[in-house]
């Protein structure tokens, strides 16, 4: 089991107290699965429209781990997800992101996708007239081609899709509609997870995939995620509420506030947050900063 | 253009330029002579002119009008002919085109508001008006009626709100037509300017005292300086026999806002060409209107919205109803000029055709020269929803009242924003009274 990012933290029975910035946080407990270091974010500073949103975020994610990033609105959670996927308009001022030892920030969005990075969008985009199946096949084959793997013909692809549909309990009718067009909020989110299931990424970032879902849809999404948990795959779940974490138990929970990770710990940290609210971490932030 | 001068043109040409206010001022006399020449040589617009495509002036061309008549300008008029509920603020009244001090209310104007008739301002202090009077003629290609107006405008509104002043009481401008021995024609020129951050509520009210077939030709310029806000109600309830030609231009500087509501009810021939130019960044215009026509009425609204600044917004909602042998024309053109990134333009025009002899012609148009743009328009012509009608009737409402209810609701959307509420209710009542067979409702 890899050791925490640094030894500066102090272990408590409740979790791991975050350490001084910018060297990062303690990445957690020793669990009996896991693997290689996959993602390493070091002292990341990001500006959006001239305003600094991330102010020194450090995070390490190993294969097989599930990390939850929680935090109040405006903390910079979605910014982190978008930077990882390579969206335009996010200016990295300082710091680095390495993925499999490569500089992620230098890669185009499609190259990141081919390398196994997947962002489930907070607001999935509608693309009128473009058939869902066609889109997904173009995406999968685009990625396979970039990886030097053979492309799937339509029969192979359809077999794969049917199998994944079953797992996701989605209606096949969804496949024949245009990408996200006229989908309900829940359908859009489930479609994201369905895409993830088909594309089988190695690093999946779920940006508020739980928001706007009723309890049944939430369970379905969670089941979809759990089904994909695997030793070679890591998840970063960005969420405002703890309730998704009742169904997808994270290995680590990090609290992002005002552009910094102010608290890290195990799954129980989420419950603590739920009980005390974000004010609880905000209150202690000055103490940490002083440390 | 034509060898034989039309009677209309002839009757205008004979107007006595010398009796106009401000006569004797060199630049003004020159401009008036030049404009008259332009008018006579251009003749009236015809259907080859896209902005006049659906409004033929052949009948007007054959008519002639008396230009100025002192007797016509001073008939006794009852206040009730133009009173509006809850509107008790500053008022400027013109009867058959001439300012009437005894009907106006200009005492104790609020701080920051200057409101005077053109016929008084011109002889006293013409220089400040020079640019405003002549400028538009240089900017826009000449239209025959604009030229005619410049040549013969004898009165109008000169209104100014100083920087930062908020005029809360609505200002009521009345253009009243009163019966006279002859059919007469008059030209009115209005100049309205709101200084930076100024706010104004203005009602342009066309009313009538007795039936007549006069012609009135108005040109109005509105300038909204940075951050100014204008709430404008155009209530057109002119005489059924009259002709009313209007050209209004709103020039909006950055962060200026206008909310406009127009209700077109009267006149045999009514045409309003309304230019809204969003020149400054973040300027916004909300324009709404409705017309209800019957008999042989012809009403034409030419709404031209130009986005020039960045992040400008326009939203337009117009409704039209035509019954009898009436013809309603709507043209809503949105132009987004190069560089007007961030423009957001919406236009909706819906019309009801209630009679086999009525006609609706509508043209929404988009001209887009920038790519960071959201623009959408929609237009429909149809009739009342039979299911809604049936629903109302099945609840015990008679066929005609049910019809009225739906027509009224159809138009009401365009008038929902009229302020104050008492004025909105009054507009609604006027609309109802104008609807075909409205009296049964």
């Amino acid at each position: 089991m890899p050791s925490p990012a640094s030894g500066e933290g102090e272990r408590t029975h409740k979790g791991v107290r975050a350490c001084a910035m910018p060297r990062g946080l303690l990445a957690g407990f020793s669990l009996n699965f896991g693997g290689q270091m996959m993602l390493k974010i070091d002292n990341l500073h990001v500006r959006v429209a001239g305003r600094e949103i991330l102010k020194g975020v450090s995070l390490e994610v190993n294969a097989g781990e599930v990390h939850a990033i929680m935090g109040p609105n405006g903390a910079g959670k979605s910014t982190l997800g978008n930077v990882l996927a390579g969206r335009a308009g996010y200016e990295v001022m300082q710091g680095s992101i390495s993925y499999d030892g490569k500089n992620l920030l230098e890669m185009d969005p499609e190259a990141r996708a081919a390398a196994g990075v997947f962002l489930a969008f907070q607001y999935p985009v509608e693309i009128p007239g473009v058939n869902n199946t066609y889109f997904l096949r173009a995406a999968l084959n685009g990625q396979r081609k970039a990886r030097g793997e053979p492309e799937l013909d339509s029969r192979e692809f359809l077999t794969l899709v049917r199998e994944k549909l079953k797992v996701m309990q989605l209606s096949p009718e969804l496949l024949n509609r245009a990408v996200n067009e006229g989908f309900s909020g829940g359908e859009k989110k489930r479609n994201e997870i369905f895409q993830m299931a088909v594309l089988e990424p190695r690093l999946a970032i779920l940006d508020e995939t739980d928001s706007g879902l009723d309890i049944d849809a939430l369970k379905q999404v969670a089941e979809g995620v759990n089904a994909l948990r695997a030793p070679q795959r890591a998840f970063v779940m960005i969420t405002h509420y703890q309730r998704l974490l009742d169904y997808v138990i994270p290995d680590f929970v990090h609290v992002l506030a005002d552009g910094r990770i102010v608290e890290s710990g195990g799954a129980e940290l989420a419950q603590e947050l739920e009980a005390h609210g974000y004010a609880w971490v905000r209150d202690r932030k000055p103490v940490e900063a002083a440390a | 253009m034509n060898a034989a001068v039309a009677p209309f043109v002839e009757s205008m040409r004979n107007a006595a330029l010398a009796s106009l206010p401000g006569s004797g001022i060199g630049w003004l006399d020159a401009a008036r002579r030049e404009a008259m020449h332009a008018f006579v040589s251009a003749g009236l617009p015809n259907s080859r002119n896209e902005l006049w495509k659906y409004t033929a002036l052949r009948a007007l061309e054959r008519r002639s009008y008396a230009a100025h008549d002192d007797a016509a300008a001073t008939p006794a008029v009852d206040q009730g002919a133009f009173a509006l509920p809850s509107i008790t603020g500053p008022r400027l009244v013109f009867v058959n085109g001439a300012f009437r001090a005894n009907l106006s209310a200009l005492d104790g104007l609020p701080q920051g508001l200057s409101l005077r008739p053109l016929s008084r301002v011109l002889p006293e202090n013409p220089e400040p008006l020079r640019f405003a009077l002549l400028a538009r003629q240089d900017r826009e290609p000449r239209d025959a009626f604009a030229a005619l107006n410049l040549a013969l405008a004898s009165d109008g509104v000169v209104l100014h709100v100083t920087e930062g002043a908020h005029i809360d009481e609505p200002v009521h401008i009345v253009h009243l037509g009163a019966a006279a021995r002859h059919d007469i024609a008059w030209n009115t020129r209005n100049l309205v300017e709101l200084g930076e951050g100024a706010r104004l509520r203005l009602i342009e009210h066309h009313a009538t005292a007795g039936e007549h077939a006069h012609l009135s030709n108005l040109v109005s310029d509105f300038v909204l300086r940075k951050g100014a806000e204008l709430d404008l109600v155009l209530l057109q309830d002119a005489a059924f026999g009259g002709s009313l030609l209007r050209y209004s231009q709103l020039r909006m500087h950055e962060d200026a806002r206008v909310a406009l509501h127009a209700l077109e009810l009267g006149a045999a021939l009514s045409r309003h060409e309304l230019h809204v130019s969003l020149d400054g960044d973040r300027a916004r215009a909300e324009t709404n209107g409705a017309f209800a026509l019957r008999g042989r009425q012809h009403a034409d609204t030419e709404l031209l919205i130009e986005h020039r600044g960045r992040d400008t917004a326009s939203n337009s909602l117009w409704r039209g109803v035509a019954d009898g042998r009436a013809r309603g024309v709507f043209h809503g053109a949105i132009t987004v000029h190069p560089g007007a990134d961030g423009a957001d333009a919406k236009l909706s025009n819906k019309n009801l055709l209630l009679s086999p002899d009525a006609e609706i012609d509508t043209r929404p148009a988009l001209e887009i020269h920038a790519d960071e743009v959201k623009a959408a328009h929609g237009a429909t012509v149809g009739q009342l929803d039979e299911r809604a009608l049936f629903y109302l009737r099945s609840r015990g409402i008679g066929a005609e009242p049910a019809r009225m209810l739906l027509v009224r609701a159809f138009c009401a959307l365009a008038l929902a924003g009229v302020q104050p509420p008492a004025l909105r209710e009054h507009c609604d009542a006027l609309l109802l009274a104008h609807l075909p067979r409205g009296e049964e409702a």
Partner: protein
Amino acid sequence: MATESRDLEALLNRRYSAGFVTDIETDSLPAGLNEDTVRAISLRKREPEWMTQWRLDAYRHWLTMTPPHWAKLNIAPIDFQAISYYAAPKQGPKSLAEVDPKLLETYEKLGVPLHERAKLAGVAVDAVFDSVSVGTTFRKELADAGVIFCSMSEAIREHPQLVKQYLGSVVPQRDNYFAALNSAVFSDGSFVFIPRGVRCPMELSTYFRINAGHTGQFERTLIIAEDGASVSYLEGCTAPMRDENQLHAAVVELVALERANIKYSTVQNWYPGDENGKGGIYNFVTKRGDCRGDDSRISWTQVETGSAITWKYPSCILRGDRSVGEFNSVALTHHRQQADTGTKMIHIGRDTRSKIVSKGISAGHGQNTYRGLVKVEKNAANARNHTQCDSLLIGKKCGAHTFPYMEVKNPSAIVEHEATTSKISDDQLFYCRSRGVGEEDAVSMIVDGFCKQVFRELPMEFAVEAKKLLEVSLEGAIG
């Protein structure tokens, strides 16, 4: 990404693949236009005297007309005396077997094989090269079904009664400036006659090719579907890359009698000129369908990617009760291309219906205008129209314009128009890319999605061709 729009521009740097010239001996008239030119064309085509007179009538009227006023088009005046009005390969074919191999090769290169061996399955093709038809495939199969599909020249000689009855009955000689010119000098085109009750057993197609320099192409197409007949017809067009502007002024007339159904599809890929606006075809076309019989139906589908200037309004006159008119259009303008296109739906009969779907794509300095008229006449009770016009803008220097006219004189009609303008959003592009779809593919995918509604209306083979054509237009991708 600040580079995104620049990439998009690069992405649009198309290659025009049909721009080659066929080296073939041509018999052409010298440039210039007068009554002798008109007589010479008629003579070369061995036309009867009535046809010559018909042409001369048109010519004499044309002389009295003035060129149209170009509302949104930026166009230099055309010198009608600098154009040659007739060009034909010297070796005139009698049948396909005798066609010059160079010609066959030309069409093969364009993807339209004419050999008996390699013919397009299920599609009969009439190939028009410059001013004449060089061959028609599947003649026997069509004749067995009673369908007449031949060149217009042949129809004038072989079926004079039909031509006399219908030619000019939808687009009169004097209809407009370019229709009058066409009536005077038209060289060839296709003639289709589907007799009563016959469903044409295969798709009919005409492939137009301008080859010779300094020539105009003035084809004339006439399609008649008798009671209960139906036909699907497609035209394709290409031309070599030349620095000059060449004029193409065609007239297409469709006549649908009772219960007849005509589907007319166009994939127009005339040479558009280069990125600076040099060269390219002026495409001024009058296309009109007459739903003369009750329950008839005419549908126009067009994919317009070529030409320097396109000016055409395929229209429907809905005369018969319950007749139906449709217009589906994709128009792409790039570089300095200008398109002013749309339709007219004239509702005259009762319970008539029309549907308009227009998709405009503007890139580079391209200017794309939809101009349409929906007119409901007084007696057209229960007329219905729905119009949808969408514009897609790619880049800051292009323009997209929508000018619909709605004139309604019947109170039971319902006429609806909606239009939107948008650009390919950065969000859509990023979404595709984050799923692993490259930028170039993402753009063509989004554009294809935008056009989907129209492509659906094309016959299968041509939908594929149209899609490819758009992809080629969007090829050249990211720098």
